Every structure is written in structure tokens, then in C-alpha cells.
């Protein structure tokens, strides 16, 4: 039987080995620092309520393959449906706001922001998005007295 100090020493040895073999990549630490600049304080958060990837293996969006993934986000009185398709390394987003409304859509990704607009049916499309984390920001639409809405970040 070994006592607690032996366990602590062995765990520490493993920790040192892991730190040398599998260190946190510097570029990811920088990405974590940069993530702070994306925080929004003036917008309502739309939470992810459905993801076809969560639980349905056959619906999986596989990198580089042509398959679709369905996502749904909900804020108070607003549902955001998004379909993601992959074409090679790029992603195409097709979305719709329910109830429909015309508004600006800022698609935030790791290299910047792509701005599109919804049509009268609340639909929007964004092509050639880079794979990786994205978050969508809608509005604000002052005419309807609605503050901006941002979705949770999701990997596409």
C-alpha cells in the first residue's frame, strides 16, 4: 500500500510529462485572450435549443463532406433556425427568423465579421464561411423596440 505523498509525487510527475508532451498551443492561449473582445453586454443571448449533431450520429456534419446540420436558437419571442452545409473547407449558412422580420445579421467568426440582411420572410444566407466557431448577432431593430440578440457560439 502506498501513501498519499507517493500518489501526489507520481501525479506531479505525470503532470510535468503532460506539460512537456502536450502543452496548450500558444495560438490557442492567444485565442482565449482574444475571446474577451467578443463579449456583448447590450444584447440578449439566444440559447441553443436544438442541434441535429447532439445525439443523431447519422445527421453529423463531417468536415469536408456534403451534409446538413440543423440548429435552433431561442430568445424571448424569437426563434432562429439555421442550416449549415459543408462544401470542402467552407460552410454555407441558411437561416430564418421566426416570426419573420427584416434586420441586419452580423456573423461573427474567428477572423472577423460577415454582415448580411434578412429578407421580408426573415431569411438570410451566408456563403463561404470559414469552419470554426461562429455566433450570429441580429439587430437591434429600434422600430420594434427590440434590443440586439446574439446566439451562443457554436462550431461549424
Amino acid at each position, binding site marked *: 500500500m502506498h501513501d498519499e505523498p507517493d500518489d501526489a509525487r507520481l501525479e506531479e510527475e505525470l503532470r510535468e*510529462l503532460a506539460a512537456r508532451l502536450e502543452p*496548450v498551443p500558444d495560438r490557442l492561449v492567444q485565442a482565449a485572450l482574444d*475571446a474577451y473582445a467578443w463579449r456583448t453586454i447590450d444584447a440578449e*443571448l439566444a440559447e441553443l435549443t436544438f442541434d441535429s449533431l447532439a445525439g443523431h450520429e447519422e445527421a453529423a456534419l463531417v468536415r469536408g463532406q456534403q451534409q446538413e446540420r440543423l440548429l435552433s436558437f431561442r430568445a424571448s419571442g424569437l426563434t432562429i433556425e439555421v442550416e449549415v452545409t459543408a462544401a470542402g473547407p467552407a460552410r454555407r449558412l441558411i437561416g430564418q427568423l421566426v416570426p419573420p422580420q427584416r434586420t441586419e445579421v452580423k456573423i461573427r467568426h474567428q477572423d472577423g465579421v460577415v454582415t448580411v440582411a434578412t429578407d421580408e420572410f426573415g431569411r438570410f444566407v451566408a456563403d463561404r464561411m470559414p469552419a470554426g466557431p461562429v455566433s450570429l448577432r441580429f439587430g437591434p431593430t429600434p422600430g420594434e423596440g427590440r434590443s440586439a440578440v446574439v446566439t451562443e457560439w457554436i462550431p461549424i
Partner: protein
Amino acid sequence: MPTDAERSRRAADLVTAAARGDDAAWKALVEQFSGLIWSVTRAYRLGSADAADVFQITWLRLAEHIGRLDHPEHVGAWLATTARREALRASRASARVVLTDEDAVFDAQEAGGETPEQAVLRSERADQLWRAFRTLPARCQLLLRLLMATPPPSYTEVAAALDRPVGSIGPTRARCLRLLREKLA
């Protein structure tokens, strides 16, 4: 080492300060918890692209939730839970063949080069220890890889990364370290 209560108080202070716009507090959170989140991606054996996505998404989620956390003192467990869920989602999504650590070593050998891993493993003890670790049962590798985070995570954070009761961590750790010691003997 600080007590769990001290860690919780410090974490809550950092979250509150970061929510007010304090860059230095955010940086301190990144320094405290990046090792834990990275360990979740290693413990769940994600390929490098998925690991990068999970790591980034976890921090972006915290940035979005920083002023909305119900329990800022439990931010470490919140991050571990978020990283675990995203890691499991990524595993399901990757129907493609995952490039494992072993594959990376193999590729480097094929190319005639030496990976950083091989350079470290030229030390005999390091080589023995890593090999022994890799032959442990999957649940032991999972738990120990989380505990191997720098700085060391709390059992509460490890339990959140595993979705297991906190009380199970200590006994499982003791069993797994005993197994590892037997393999090294």
C-alpha cells in the same frame, strides 16, 4: 496549495472583475483554466482541429456568459462542463478517422523527422511512464489526463469534466495510480 474555498473566492472575484471589463482579470482566468480545458480535449482524445474548436468555443462561451453566471465561484466547473459537452459533440461529429497522437508520431517517423514527443521520450523514465499510462484502462487514462492539467484542477472541476460525483474522484485516482505503479514495477 490554496484551499478550495480560497480558489472559489478568487475565481468569483476574477469573474466579477472581468464582467466589469477588467482585461487583467480575464487574462488571469485564461491562465488559471486553459490547462484544464486543454486537458479535457486531450482526455477525450480529440484530433487537433476538434481540440482547437472545443478550446475556443469554451472561452467564447465564457466571454458571452461572464456577466450572467449564476455561480461565479464555480466558473472552473462551468468551463469543464462546457468543454466536456463540446468535446462529446465533436467526437460524435467526427465520423472521419481521427488523427490520434500515435498517428502523429507515425507520420513524423514516415517523414524521417522527430516529433517533440519523441525528443521528450528519449528520456528512459519519461518513455516508461508515458507507455505505462497509455496502457491503463480507458477510464483511468481519462481521469488521470484531467488531473494532469497545469495548474492542478480541483476535484470539483475534474468531476464536472467527467460528469461524475465529486466523491468518486479520490478513490478512482488512488486505484488508477496504483495500477500505474504496478505497470512500472
